[in-house]
């Protein structure tokens, strides 16, 4: 019952977003921009800001009128019809179809969809991948043989999965382990990291400095930041304890970074924020990170060796980009190290 209600809310929330960009309780980057322009202005262009989109607003679905894919006896199709994208699966005899409610991920690497059927939410068995500009099996579904049309269409999402997915890909989507999609803003917006701003805004307006205080993420240590970002990107603790190691953990940057020899829980120079400004799109030019490496390896830290080979494009060698099977994408390995020829992927 809980699942059905949450799913109905899921699609209702999707429709609400499609129809209106302004919920009275939603505070978007626009509200924060008045006082924090340096952070707020570049943020809407980031991937994180678009980590979740309604199907009606999804750029990939809008620019791809038809996407299709075949796997075994099943053929998949996503077809744009007005503001809707209809997901259909056919085994030649019968066809299953449902409108897509949500698109998860901006699609820099890939994008997976969620649809609702009979009051339940499902993750599509196929995803869009940028590298092939088309559909392929969703990661994790590659080894599954569907027993029926419903299995072939997608994987049922239980309550916890929905809380986890919406909790990371949207803002104010969950509260105390329950979905609050009526209060949700798609994507990672200011309040997803900084917390509720209502008191802060009231405090600013009324001159109440105490009320205006917000938690200062800048004051967190490298370890605390790693755990903070790891809420969604996975912490060392989660992965190390799960025992699920292998190339699949390359996506979990805080875990990988923590495994680096140079990781220091108390040194801000190795914190996630030392290299990445979450208000801006991630920088993909290797040389732009040189100064970050040189902060320690340029003589700034006694225990950090100076590279004998080069002083530029450090990450190109020490943070190799590795293919994650099934993802059609190479991920930057955040386990900083001296990479040996033919090395086995270090867990």
């Amino acid at each position, binding site marked *: 019952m*809980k699942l059905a209600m949450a799913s109905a809310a899921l699609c209702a929330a999707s429709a609400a977003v499609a129809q209106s960009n302004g919920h009275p309780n939603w505070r978007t980057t626009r509200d924060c921009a008045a006082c924090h322009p340096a952070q707020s202005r570049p943020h809407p262009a980031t991937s994180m800001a678009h980590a979740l989109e309604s199907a009606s607003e999804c750029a990939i679905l809008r620019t791809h009128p038809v996407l299709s894919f075949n796997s075994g006896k099943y053929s998949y199709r996503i077809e744009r019809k007005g503001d809707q994208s209809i997901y259909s699966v056919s085994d030649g005899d019968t066809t299953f179809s449902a409108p897509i409610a949500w698109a998860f991920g901006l699609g820099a690497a890939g994008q997976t969809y969620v649809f609702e059927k009979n009051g339940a939410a499902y993750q599509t068995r196929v995803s869009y991948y940028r590298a092939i500009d088309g559909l392929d099996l969703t990661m994790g579904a590659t080894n599954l043989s569907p027993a029926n049309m419903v299995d072939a269409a997608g994987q049922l999402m*239980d*309550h*916890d999965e929905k809380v986890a997915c919406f909790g990371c890909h949207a803002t104010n989507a969950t509260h*105390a*382990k329950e979905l609050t999609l009526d209060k949700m803003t798609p994507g990672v917006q200011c309040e997803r990291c900084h917390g509720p701003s209502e008191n802060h805004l009231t405090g600013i307006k009324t001159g109440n400095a105490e009320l205006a205080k917000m938690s200062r993420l800048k004051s967190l240590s490298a*370890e605390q930041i790693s755990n903070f970002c790891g809420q969604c990107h996975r912490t*060392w*603790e989660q992965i*190390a*304890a799960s*025992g699920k*190691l292998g190339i699949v953990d390359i996506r979990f940057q805080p875990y990988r970074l*923590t*495994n680096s020899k140079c990781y*220091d*829980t*108390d040194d801000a120079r190795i914190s996630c924020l030392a290299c990445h400004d979450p208000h801006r799109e991630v920088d993909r030019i290797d040389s732009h990170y040189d100064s970050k490496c040189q902060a320690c390896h340029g003589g700034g830290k006694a225990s950090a060796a100076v590279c004998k080979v080069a002083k530029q494009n450090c990450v190109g060698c020490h943070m190799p980009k590795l293919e994650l099977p099934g993802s059609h994408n190479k991920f930057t390995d955040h386990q900083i190290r001296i990479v040996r020829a033919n090395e086995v992927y270090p*867990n």
Partner: protein
Amino acid sequence: MYRFALALLCAGACGAQSAQSPQDLLKEAIALQQAGKFDAAIRDYRQILDKYPDIPEIRSNLGAALAGEGHYTEAIVEYERALSSKPDPQVRLNLALAYYKTTRLTEAIKALEEVRKESPSNFQALTLLADCHLRLGHNKEVISLLDSAGQADSDSPALVYLLGTALVRDGQTARGQVLIDKILKNGDSAEARLLMGTTKYMVGDFSGALADLQKAVELNSSLPDLNAYYGLALLSTGDQADARKAFERELQLNSNNFDANLRMGVLLRQDEDNAKAAQYLQHALQIRPGDFGVRYQIAALELSEGQVAAAIRDLESILKEAPQFTEAHVSLATAYYREKRKADGDRERAVVAELNAARQAKEAAVKAR
């Protein structure tokens, strides 16, 4: 016992002044107890014991009446006092039952072993002793106990079931299967389905286990331990909501089920309902004192509650006894970092890396075979 106590009362009652004679009071107390009016019987026994405190039979009767009222802790005190004056296998068995009811299983085992020394053919003591060991997870002890008692080929459904369960839980599935077949000869039953489901669960066939356990629930949903195993199978197949309901059902039937208490604690901790989680986990620890899994969950709970020093103390204690417990090293590293003990945290992380590497190497070797 009644006559003997009466004789003692007669001897001691000479010259006693009372509205009701001690003999009459004892007769009344026994009649009340037999009629299930434990409260009134307790009152009468206490009245007699005020004047004649050294009659063990009356004290053990008081213990039995207290147990009848559910006051097991007080019953234990009376049984122990009675036994200190006069050893008696039946009273000791009652004492063991009271320990069992209060989940003091280790003490119950000691008492039952004494009973078996005094009265080796006592079937109830044997069954209860095997059950205590089973609840503590001492599967090998159950097998050894029943084998050495010559009960391996018993036709008693209770013993077949206890031995079958211990064998399955100990991984001796082939021998366990023989006992499952023995139970199945009498037709499909919840007991047989539970054993089959448990066997499949132990070898990782969770959907197969779920099917058998579901059938067992249909046949007899009040079978002890059944709902707990059903919950475990549901958890393993991803149905957390129904698993929780199954654990709750088990605890309604049997509040001393270890797995149901442990899993409820874990589920509530996930929901950040830490106060309730702590209650279940502490109860699980009471059932199986020293269990690493429960102690780890309690330490993790302390960590999430900000009781870092307590978490460190508990995790260090676990790791002294179980140095290969990877999750405990992981949590201990986190706890050290929170206490700004970087060197200790780094050391724990290095241990985790070593343990994970060793585990992976082992898995790779198994795959290569």
